[in-house]
């Protein structure tokens, strides 16, 4: 664990990408293979199943530290991270150990078979054998949410450096339904069998936002435009008579969307579609909130299936007749996609994402303004002769979203962030005016610079009116422009609305509270865009 803890520290101590990649590449060359595999798993969002509740961890840590639980909780609220609080609060270990990462993961997974007293013993023993950083890592393995400041892209780059295998190849090898139990470093990374995993998806190609408009993109004839749909990006895979549906977050969501069985019936074997899963009724997209009801559910009751039916709006074909065709130009992939979908009857939940007909950028700009009326977020631009790349790469795919909706709101509650943002007030609740009253209507966590977060944090500390646990009511003084992508009616919220992707787009130092927007303004937006 010392080697892994040292890696964690090295990654945590620098903000420089090259240093992070170098540290990780070193580790992936030197660590035992099972540890390498687990590290790759952790950095691609796979973690051991939780075998101890956080309630028990808190209790045991407080007991071991000889402090009352209330003091533990107070400490936690300052640290902002449970794993770290426990690591800091425990007495120093009485035994030295340097067992590999895989050993500790095995210990953690073994807990599920034990009764509570034995679990307690095993955890106390582990804590007593690990130094502060090692303990922190160990606790993180239990509690999850392991972020090491390394994106999947950087991890793949580091693995490429340490193995000499091409980054894109690796990105594909690391996709799909594998777990450290079901494979080895050798089988996953070094010598994979391409037929081993029928469900394996391709790495998604991700578009960059087109900030300055399309004028710099050259001849419009070289570009294909589509509407940008607001659903869940997904890959539908049909191989050897089986179908699999993957989310963009690489979660296998086949069981949550059983209706795609009908789609798979009409698709030839060896087909992989890339598209957007959308709530769909009467040939129109449903609001995202309807789709949301489906996302959280592992199984789907009949009623929900009827209330929030979905389709896949397909926009790309990655595998055709069992062959990886990502290297072919977009125009040919699209032609093949069209040919396949032409064979699919309308009762199957598959629709081609239509191309937007346009001749000039001016013309497209005007069409883009109609996005919201079409339940789209803007337009997508894809270069006709481009291959399907992996990850976020600039140049061939662009998303050109419509400008967000905005409203000026008053900050009324603040809460500290967690993890990297612990000790910093980053989570805020905003209100609009309603006569003399302030009506909360949204939370927002992002959009400010680090300097602004530091500044607002210092201000919150000095301007707290009331505390409700971790939440502080602050003096209503600061106005922020809140940007959001959509607005929906919501009976669950006091204000009656729910926003899509709210964030702080500007700190309006120039505005005072009485210049913030009102509840009537918000209702008018709901009327216009809801």
């Amino acid at each position, binding site marked *: 664990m010392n080697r892994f803890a040292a890696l964690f520290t090295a990654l945590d101590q620098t903000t420089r990408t090259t240093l992070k990649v170098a540290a990780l590449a070193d580790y992936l060359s030197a660590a035992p293979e099972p540890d390498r595999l687990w590290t790759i798993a952790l950095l691609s969002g796979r973690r051991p199943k939780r075998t101890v509740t956080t309630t028990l961890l808190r209790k045991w840590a407080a007991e071991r530290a000889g402090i009352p639980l*209330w003091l533990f909780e107070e400490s936690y609220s300052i640290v*902002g991270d449970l794993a770290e609080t426990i690591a800091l609060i425990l007495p120093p270990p009485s035994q030295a150990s340097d067992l590999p990462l895989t050993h500790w993961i095995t210990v953690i997974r073994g807990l599920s078979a034990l009764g509570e007293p034995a679990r307690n013993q095993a955890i106390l023993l582990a804590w007593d054998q690990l130094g502060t950083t090692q303990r922190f890592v160990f606790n993180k393995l239990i509690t999850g949410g392991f972020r090491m400041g390394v994106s999947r892209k950087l991890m793949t780059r580091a693995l490429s450096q340490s193995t000499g295998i091409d980054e894109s190849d690796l990105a594909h090898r690391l996709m799909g339904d594998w777990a450290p139990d079901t494979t080895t470093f050798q089988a996953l990374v070094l010598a994979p069998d391409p037929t081993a995993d029928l469900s394996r998806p391709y790495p998604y190609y991700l578009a960059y936002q087109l900030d300055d408009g399309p004028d710099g993109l050259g001849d419009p004839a070289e570009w294909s435009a589509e509407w940008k749909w607001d659903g869940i990006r997904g890959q539908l895979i049909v191989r050897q008579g089986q179908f699999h549906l993957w989310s963009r977050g690489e979660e296998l969501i086949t069981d949550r969307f059983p209706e795609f069985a009908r789609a798979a019936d009409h698709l030839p074997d060896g087909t992989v579609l890339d598209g957007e899963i959308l709530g769909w009724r009467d040939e129109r997209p449903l609001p995202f909130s309807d789709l949301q009801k489906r996302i959280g559910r592992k199984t789907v009751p009949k009623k929900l299936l009827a209330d929030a039916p979905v389709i896949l709006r397909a926009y790309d074909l990655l595998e055709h007749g069992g062959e990886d065709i990502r290297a072919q130009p977009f125009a040919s992939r699209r032609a093949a996609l069209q040919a396949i979908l032409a064979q699919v009857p309308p009762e199957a939940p598959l629709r081609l994402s239509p191309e937007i007909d346009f001749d000039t950028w001016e013309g497209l700009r005007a069409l883009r303004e109609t996005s919201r009326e079409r339940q789209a977020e803007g337009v997508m631009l894809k270069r006709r002769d481009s291959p399907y790349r992996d990850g976020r790469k600039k140049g061939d795919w662009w998303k050109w979203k419509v400008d967000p909706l905005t409203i000026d709101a008053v900050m009324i509650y603040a809460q500290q962030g967690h*993890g990297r943002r*612990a000790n910093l007030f980053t989570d805020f609740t905003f209100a609009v005016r309603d006569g003399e009253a302030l009506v909360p209507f949204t939370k927002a966590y992002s959009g400010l610079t*680090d300097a602004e977060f530091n500044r607002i944090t210092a201000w919150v500390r000095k301007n707290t009116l009331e505390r409700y646990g971790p939440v502080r009511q602050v003096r209503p003084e600061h106005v922020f422009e809140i940007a959001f992508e959509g607005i929906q009616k919501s009976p669950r919220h006091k204000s009656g609305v729910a926003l899509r992707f709210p964030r702080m787009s500007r700190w309006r130092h120039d505005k005072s509270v009485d210049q913030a927007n009102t509840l009537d303004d918000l209702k008018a937006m709901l009327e216009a865009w809801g």
Partner: protein
Amino acid sequence: MTDDVLICTDRGLYCPGGDFFIDPWRPVDRALITHGHADHARPGHGSYLATPAAAPVMRHRLGDITLATIAYGEVRRIGDVSVSFHPAGHVPGSAQIRVEQAGQVWVVSGDYKIEPDGFCEPFEPVPCHAFITECTFGLPIFTWQPQAVVAEQVNQWWAANAAEGRASILGAYALGKAQRLLSVLDPEIGPILTHGAVENTNEILRAQGLILPDTIRVTPETNPKDHPGALVLATPSALGTPWARRFGAASDGFASGWMALRGVRRRRAADRGFVMSDHADWPGLNTAIRATGAERVLVTHGYTTVFRRWLEDQGYNAQIVQTDFTGESLDEEDPE
């Protein structure tokens, strides 16, 4: 409550029996000062009383003041009370102030730490009936490593940077922390450069007899290339400024008790955070309080609400005293 030796006022802790204040934050006639940090030694008082070792820094910072000194352990009669100063181990010359009136002994801790740092006069427990203690780090998440361990970390970091041809910029308070770091840095690794605010304090402390390693003051004419592998000791607020950028692709570090918290460490966006504080950690606070034998403990500055509740759980008669001290602050880095 009428026989309290010290009471809390809007100007600071006041002793009615001696008609003086301790570390007042608004102008008063007579002020007893625990140490020279800006939140404890403020301008505008009629007269000041401090230890001889604290005096030069105070004169430097506060200019022309009426300042008398009192040696550690010397008992002085002021009005109806006897007063003496005792080492607090916080910075050179820092003191706890003991006030006795009619057999009742009260002690004001000022800022303190109990681990001897080999540099300032070590903390001395003073038995008392009531102890007014700071609790900047009054949560069980704060436990300091021995100084030697942290010193080793700093020197290793410096040596690694020097080996790679990078300067090391270390942020620390100009009074106390900077000199404590100087006293543990290994001059064999390379030259030590200092920010003007740090070097001003160095000069004062050297003049009063403290031994510090050789340092080179950074001036507008300083060429970093003339000092390869240097460690640059700067105030925290100088990190990341144009002043610091002259050293090129340097590694920066920051030494503070708050560096124990990952969130704060990352927020500082320094490459390294070293956990070193001139305040007592959780075990230190508890040890110090026990050693006084006090039944009554008044807590100030820090996690007062939590710490008071903890002390009550432990059977003390505990209260909170509101003060304006900032100490080793989480929000503003430099009390200088």
